[in-house]
């Protein structure tokens, strides 16, 4: 636990489910930490890898909330597109030596205000454990892991074995 550290979380919330779920948390007056600031996006399928990376570069964690699989997506399959992209991105983060837990994908429906509040609370605690994140010289555990993984890649002639 990093004392005095208040995580900054950026949320990408799909306008039909995640964003509505967040609204429901508000309507139900459920409390969660003010760590999260969100952008309303049309669909999880609209969220691009580069946007998540850009958000992560400015924060300590990124929460993506979309519609439940398989059938809740308002645009048929945007949730699956999002799932594939986030899965790949997490793999990529791991290769970069960044803890993939800094990006969290959740399915939160318009009625799941409780779930939204719980997820934000949980995620905030997790990020607190991980500590601040930063590319530029802000040393963190992950940057060290990153160097480790580079070394091991070199040793193994570019092949990865974890």
């Amino acid at each position, binding site marked *: 636990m990093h004392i005095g550290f208040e995580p900054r979380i950026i949320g990408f919330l799909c306008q039909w489910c995640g964003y509505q779920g967040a*609204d429901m948390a508000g309507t139900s007056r459920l409390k*969660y930490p003010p760590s999260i600031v969100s952008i309303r996006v*049309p669909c999880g399928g609209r969220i691009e890898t580069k946007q998540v990376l*850009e*958000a992560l570069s400015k924060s300590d964690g990124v929460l993506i909330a979309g519609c439940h699989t398989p059938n809740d997506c308002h645009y048929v399959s945007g949730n699956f597109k999002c799932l594939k992209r986030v899965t790949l991105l997490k793999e990529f983060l791991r290769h970069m030596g960044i803890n993939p837990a800094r990006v969290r994908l959740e399915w939160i429906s318009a009625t799941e205000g409780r779930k939204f509040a719980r997820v934000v609370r949980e995620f905030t605690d997790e990020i607190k454990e991980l500590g601040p994140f930063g590319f530029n010289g802000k040393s963190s555990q992950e940057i060290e892991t990153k160097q480790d993984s580079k070394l091991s890649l070199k040793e193994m002639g570019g092949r990865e074995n974890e």
Partner: protein
Amino acid sequence: MESALAAHRERPTKEKIGVFVCHCGRNIATTVDTKRVVEEILKHPAVVHAEDYDYVCSSPGQELIEKAVKEKRLTGVIVAACSPSLHETTFREVAERTGLNPYKCEIANIREQDSWVHEDKEKATEKAIKLTKSAVEKVIRNEELEPIKVGLYRKALVIGGGIAGIRAALDIADAGFPVVLVEKGPTIGGHMAKLAETFPTLDCASCILTPLMSGVAHHPNITLLTLSEIMDVEGYLGNFHVRIKKNPRYVDPEKCNLCNDCVDICPVTVSSEFDEGLSLRKAIYIPFPQAVPSSYLIDLDACLGMNPITCGKCAEPDICGPEAVNFDDQAEIIEEDVGVIVVATGYELYNPANIGEYGADKYPDVITSLQFERLLSPSGPALGIPKRPSDEKIPKRIAFIHCVGSRDERHQPYCSHICCTYSAKHALLFKELVPDADIYSFYIDIRAVGKNYEDFIRRVQEEAGVHYIRGKVSRIYEQDGKVKIFGVDTLLNKRIEIEVDMAVLALSMVPAHDIEDLASKMRIQIDGSGFLQELHPKLHPVESATSGIFLAGAAQSPKDIQDTVAQASAAASKALGVLTQEKISHIPTVATVDTDLCSGCRLCISVCPYGAIKLVDEKAEVKEILCEGCGACVSTCPSDAISLRNHTDEQVSSMLKALVGEI
């Protein structure tokens, strides 16, 4: 610092934005220092006006916006208030009144996603400033857009032929628009057709319902499809394309003259669905005499076989004179183009077998409330004099058990809304038929929450002399021809053990078992209890999240007939609001292609769920009317050639900067 300055230089300077911070009474102002938000937002180079006000959505609040736009010649407006789901439309209309393009108005959600969920005023205020700045960053980059206008099919689809579907179909049809009414079962009428009398006025259910059913059958604007189910739904508001599977009836309703000769000759008997298993019917049958369509049908699962070797007696010319029986009847796929859809798929009763301790599946004299309703019905299996299913004797002592499967964490946590009142009705009707009856009613709380319902309960308590016992029944079993009930009286604080002749379980209402499947076909949401989710409980109580699809009746939540009919008429009037329009507005926030960058790789075509993109001269082209604005193509395009109007990469990037305080 340098990058922040660069960002400032990049930003369009001609924009003049006005920001209006709402207190929402105390809802926002208690947790967010609105004055500070105003102070901070004025530092933004594009913001030339900012003020806070009690209720920006009120008339005087809207006038503040109009005044500021005119006086300061604003080019865009931000309202920092409640969720855009609530008042985005309201404020965009205000913007439009002042001559601004509605898309030059954005909402910063500082209530649902800020003041209501945080307690620390300092931090909530910081967050409100960030959210408002991010909205400013978005609005200065918003394009001025006009809605795309499209034609519509002036026809409605109503799914479900219970009282809700019947009412909605008749309302729409009476207004002059064609309606396709689709019912899964062989007749319309739904659960209401099974009821004896309705509370609190004790009108006879059939006397209210059958004229409406007949109205549906004869209405020139209604096409009734029974034994039919929805296969798939495509399209959007005003332009839905629906495929319906119409299952074979094997009897031609046009030819059938209801002579009943086929029933007399049919050798197969099975239990009757209409009488809730309390009577028998043949394999060829009519659900009940007033069924609509007024025709017999063959239950293929029960029928011995439709050729002369196995049976086929009903089709013989001396039995079916008009030759209505048609063994070669086939299922057909019917395609319909409609502008609006009303979903009224109703409810089912919770399966009593799930509540083992009450033994409804084991003991013949422990019956469901709907079975009791059939026993009370003059057209029912007992001709209106309730008899015990086990020995056909008229019961003298009877117990009604409320909340069976409702308000119970092990089953359904919700209240089924109607059981208190209908159990009281059952008691009253039974007392009229058997004046010396002893009646017990086990309840948790009496929830009679409709007009005149409380009076009705009081009348039952006084007139019928029902022993109301407050407490939950723990166990029911049958012994020596008697039904034994164990429970507790929580008012007297003592254990109760009584012996009755019959027990009636007020089972909870649950959504139709296939509702989830239907909901996903239509991309509408279901709530935590499995009922259909309305868009907003107060602002949009009959609308689903998919525009053009409306909800009515018990499919949305447990409700009585009065509320169901009111909601059905509400859904019909919303549907008519669409059908009476000349054109439908389609969202203009659609995808657009920069043909200079497009490499013609076709990836966008493969991800578009609507087939809205085509290749023209080796370049992608978006057919705007089909595009729903999901942005799947945008995030897939490897050349960054596609962007979503008013949700561009540049906008997201600048909003991110604002959210972390870089702007």
